């Protein structure tokens, strides 16, 4: 069921630049299990959009099927949402983006949705450079069907249904190979890391993947599971700390020379990256790949902004569409008329 929250707003709630309060970015009451990591991610999305002062109707949220794909009901209640079919959100998002290049598209998916049934669509949306924020709520299991292993479950990880013997798919590493221009990994329990990453992903022009480890409290939070809260907390390692600076603000934070890098994104916002590993540079794919493999060997979960390549063309740039959104073109723009048709007829005789 969809539960409607009370519309009461405390008068003292702070407002963003558009005059909206954080409540305006919330959705219906979540029906996920208490303590589900996904709800924290919904919270982080709400916070990021509020803080960025995104007009709610300028963002569309899309999902597939599964626990993760239910979440768009639970955030951004003033935005249009589309809960499509299992594993096919990327194609629906592609169509939506083609229709109107001016909106922000937030795709929400899960490990079953993206790494199994929808692997093909995930892969092709990346190689097409779809301009989308693609959040995978990754719990290594199928929650809605009661805890079967998914394709992101690590070898040897134990869920309530037993041990997984099959190779895990690393969606972030895969996205790198496929040409994603923004690849991040985070943890649902780490809002301070996740919120700036979501903001940066929204500001990024192109395919932005955030693979968020999000423990399933009901089916995959037990001892022996590598996606359990405790395990993730113990094995997390951070590539770097990201500060998101909105377009209107000056960069004022000072960090030690050599330890930070500044990046300007498509919309004029800035990212301050503070490296924690000496040989790691998120703009250098080779060093990123190396770091990911090293972390994997050490059974560490590498989080943070893993890779970024600003200033690359997206699907619209590659297809060559006009700047006016296609859904705003009317009969006069689109219909060539009868004179042209008469000429075509002449050529067909």
């Amino acid at each position, binding site marked *: *069921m*969809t539960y*409607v929250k009370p519309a009461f707003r405390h008068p003292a709630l702070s407002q963003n630049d558009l005059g909206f309060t954080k409540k305006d970015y919330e959705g*219906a009451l979540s029906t996920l299990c208490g303590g589900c990591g996904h709800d924290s991610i919904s919270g982080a999305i709400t916070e990021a959009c509020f803080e960025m002062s995104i*007009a*709610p*109707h*300028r963002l*569309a949220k899309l999902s597939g099927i599964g626990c993760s794909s239910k979440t768009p*009901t639970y955030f951004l*209640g*003033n*935005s*249009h*949402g*589309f*809960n*499509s*079919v299992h594993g*096919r959100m*990327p*194609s*629906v*998002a*592609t*169509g*939506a*983006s*083609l*229709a*109107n290049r001016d*909106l922000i598209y937030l795709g929400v998916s899960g490990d079953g949705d993206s790494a199994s049934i929808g692997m*093909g*669509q995930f*892969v*092709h949306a990346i190689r*097409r450079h779809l301009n989308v924020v693609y959040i995978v709520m990754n719990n290594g299991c199928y929650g809605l069907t009661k805890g079967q292993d998914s394709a992101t479950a690590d070898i040897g990880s134990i869920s309530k249904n037993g041990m997984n013997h099959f190779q895990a798919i690393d969606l972030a590493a895969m996205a790198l190979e496929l040409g994603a221009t923004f690849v991040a990994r985070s943890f649902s329990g780490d809002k301070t890391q996740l919120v700036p990453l979501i903001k940066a992903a929204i500001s990024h022009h192109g395919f932005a993947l955030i693979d968020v480890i999000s423990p399933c409290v009901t089916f995959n939070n037990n001892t022996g599971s590598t996606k359990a809260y405790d395990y993730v907390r113990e094995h997390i390692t951070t590539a770097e700390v990201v500060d998101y600076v909105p377009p209107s603000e000056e960069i004022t934070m000072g960090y030690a020379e050599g330890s930070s890098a500044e990046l300007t994104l498509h919309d004029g916002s800035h990212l301050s990256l503070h490296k924690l590993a000496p040989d790691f540079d998120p703009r250098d794919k080779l060093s990123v790949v190396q770091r990911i493999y090293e972390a994997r060997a050490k059974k560490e979960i590498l989080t943070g902004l893993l890779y970024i390549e600003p200033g690359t063309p997206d699907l619209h740039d590659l*297809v*060559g*569409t*006009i*700047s006016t959104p*296609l*859904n705003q*073109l*009317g*009969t006069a*723009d*689109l*219909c*060539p*008329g*009868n004179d*042209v*048709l*008469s000429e*075509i*007829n002449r050529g*067909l*005789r």
Partner: protein
Amino acid sequence: MRSIAAINDFVVRFANVNGTGSASANNMFAKAVFRMGIPFSAKNIFPSNIQGLPTWYEVRISEKGYLGRRDGIDLMVSVNPQSLPQDVKSVSPGGYFVYDSTKILYQELVRDDITYIGVPMMEICMREYSDPRQRQLFKNMIYVGALSQLLNMDFEVFKGIIADEFKKREKLIAPNIHAMELGRNYIAEHYDYPLPLRMETRDLVGDSIIMDGNSACGLGAVYGGATVAAWYPITPSTSLVQAFEKYANRLRIDPESGKKKFAVVQAEDELAAIGMAIGANWNGARAFTATSGPGISLMNEFLGLAYFAEIPLVLTDVQRTGPSTGMPTRTQQSDILLSAYASHGDTKHILLFPANPKECFEIQALSFDLAERLQTPIIVMIDLDLGMNEHMSPPLQWDDSRQYDRGKVYNAEDLDRIGMFGRYLDSDGDGIPYRTIPGTHPTKGSFFTRGTSRDEYARYTEEGAAYVRNMERLVKKWNTAKEVVPQPEFYQDGNQSKDGVIFFGTSTDSALEALDLLKEDGVNLDAMRLLSFPFSQKVADFIQNHERIFVIEQNRDAQMRSLLINELETNPAKLIRVLNYDGMPITAAYIRGQILNLYKI
């Protein structure tokens, strides 16, 4: 031996090897018939292969204007040694066999009831040309030249066609005319010409055009305002989206920026193709995809979503022979039931059945209006015969005063005016609710689109009563659709006979010809052509008012008949099957034979 003698009423078949450039020469022949003012129809009979296998091209020349396929080959042009025995055999007694006499014909291939006309095509080419590619290509023009002489065709007409064809490569005009002359001269020097089988210039084609259905659909999508085309290559639908892209590149480029007012995306599969079309339609663009039967199978889940979530969608199915991979390059009307009820649960989809290129253009364009008006998938059902063969058709027309019907869409002012927005409220009593497009209003009109059950305000619910209300409203919408879709066409004033025929799509030409033949046999039948599913009252009435009805279609299981029985609760005994499903377009003689047989019983 009595040779066939006929003026402007015969069938010529070309036997070629695919990938040898014969297609353009054969097309030139057909176009010359047309430009001589004589109605024609052409069928390409080709393998699912790129190079080396036999391919045939058949041209029916018909002064009476019968455009369906006709069995019986009056003249065979044989340029493929591979299929020679079969080609000799397939000529009607008294017919003609034009062949490459560079090599001597085996004695066992010599029939005594047909006339052989040898033209040493390869020998002439070897003598005239040194380049192997030229030898190949001009050989085609040599047989067209020989044929033009034998059949009394106007050489000036050919010269005009060649000039048009090579407008941008003028250097090629003279050599092509010369190659034709080589063929013409050989006939003049060695044979009596023209044959008793011949053409005479007429003025019977009026302002008709020659176009294939896929191109007409592609152009219809441009005129219908499609801005997003997502597709996956599959025979025989591939050339439809390619035609859309070709015309859009010509007609939809923004003059200032040079950028496109459309987007074509080749998807990774049919699932993604329809997903993109749905996403774009959801977001307010007119989007479509095109496929064939195997693609429809793959698109089933998404079709159910679009039906239930009420998202406009245009999908064109260029049917081919199934089941499974079937015969990918042969025609059939066998996706009717699959398309009508595609997807799990209680689903029904609107099907439209154009019968010629003009209707392909109009119905494809109209389908975008219908999709937005009815907020549901519209499936345009054509087939390989209509889609890939060139047809003579009335010219295309567009009413410049026409505005696109975007259906029931609330804008920002509407939302401020109406109070609470209910996406699935039946405000007008026609079963069609109002929708909003993302990006319309900062705080009003947003809703959640889902394939799960919801209430009138798009809120998720598993309450049985709310689910039933919604399903009943969808039925109401379906009933609204019945009278909105294109209505059937009748071929007589009122009802004149006790029995009737029903047909649709590419069976039309042959069915109408069969009706003429049957009239000569003393059998008079009323005729109705279906243009749409769901069936309107007119369809029900026609069936009601006739004792027996022959349902002519091109599949094994009489799918349209099943649909009529199922949807109109017709007595099955009333509807008699007339079926052709061998992959070749149905013929008038076949229809006549079937119906006469049934009358004898």
